[in-house]
């Protein structure tokens, strides 16, 4: 039996003022969950390519639909954001970037960089894919 010691509790999450790093911490986890289920699409696509023209046509009709495009766009952003946000975590793991200015800069860079990379990739994708 452990003896319970009465200690002051730390305040709950909703007590704190929202900060960018706090919000992005939750976004990192949320994009991770989205990518977890998004991997189903990647595997569906791989199985379809290996199965034949019929199965592949089903994937293509999905990715060509507006909902399919939206999911693919969302997947791209989730991947790019999670990657840059993850690089930020690797920087922290190495012991750098903990000062307030550095911390804010890294977080802003991950947020803006993720959006920019996503838009850039889709511009290139439409430029290449549209020509085929």
């Amino acid at each position, binding site marked *: 039996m*452990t*003896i319970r*010691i009465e*200690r002051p509790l730390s305040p709950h999450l909703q007590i704190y003022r929202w900060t960018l790093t706090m919000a992005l911490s939750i976004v990192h*986890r949320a994009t*991770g*969950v989205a*990518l*977890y289920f998004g*991997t*189903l699409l*990647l*595997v569906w696509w*791989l*199985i*379809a*390519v*290996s199965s*034949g*023209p019929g*199965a*592949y*046509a089903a994937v293509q009709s999905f990715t060509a639909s507006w909902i399919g495009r939206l999911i693919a766009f969302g997947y791209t952003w989730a991947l790019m954001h999670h*990657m840059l946000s*993850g*690089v930020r975590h*690797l920087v922290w*793991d190495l012991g750098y970037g903990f000062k307030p200015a550095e911390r804010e800069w890294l977080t802003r860079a991950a947020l803006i960089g993720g959006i920019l990379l996503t838009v850039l*990739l889709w511009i*290139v*994708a439409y430029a*290449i*894919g*549209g*020509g*085929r």
Partner: protein
Amino acid sequence: MQPLSGPKSMRTPLGRVRNLGASHTGTKDFWRQRVTAVAMILLIVPMVVVMMILLGRNQAGAAQILGSPPIAIIMLLFVVASIWHMKIGMQVIIEDYVHDEKTKLASIMANNFFSVTLALAAAYAIFKLSSGV
């Protein structure tokens, strides 16, 4: 010296655990999460190039490209790294939010089944494309 336990001590049970604790391990998943993360950072550029090459192709074209050795190997590496990474990540989330022990164990088991199934299904498809059957 401070007492290690008892009502006078402010140390938590966790704080009293010595060395690596009862399991003698615990950082394996932490380390693998970083290894797979770095692997994916290295693989992201080749993966984007492969995706761009595949855009707008029909099934026969896509199958031929995905069956070529360098592309199949890139795909396999990415699938292994990403599914391993997401399996560890989801386990951390389950351990954070699922407090009921039985539900937690069942969820972790389901996470393992889901991840292994996806990884093997993807590997099967890649090998099938590479062997051209």
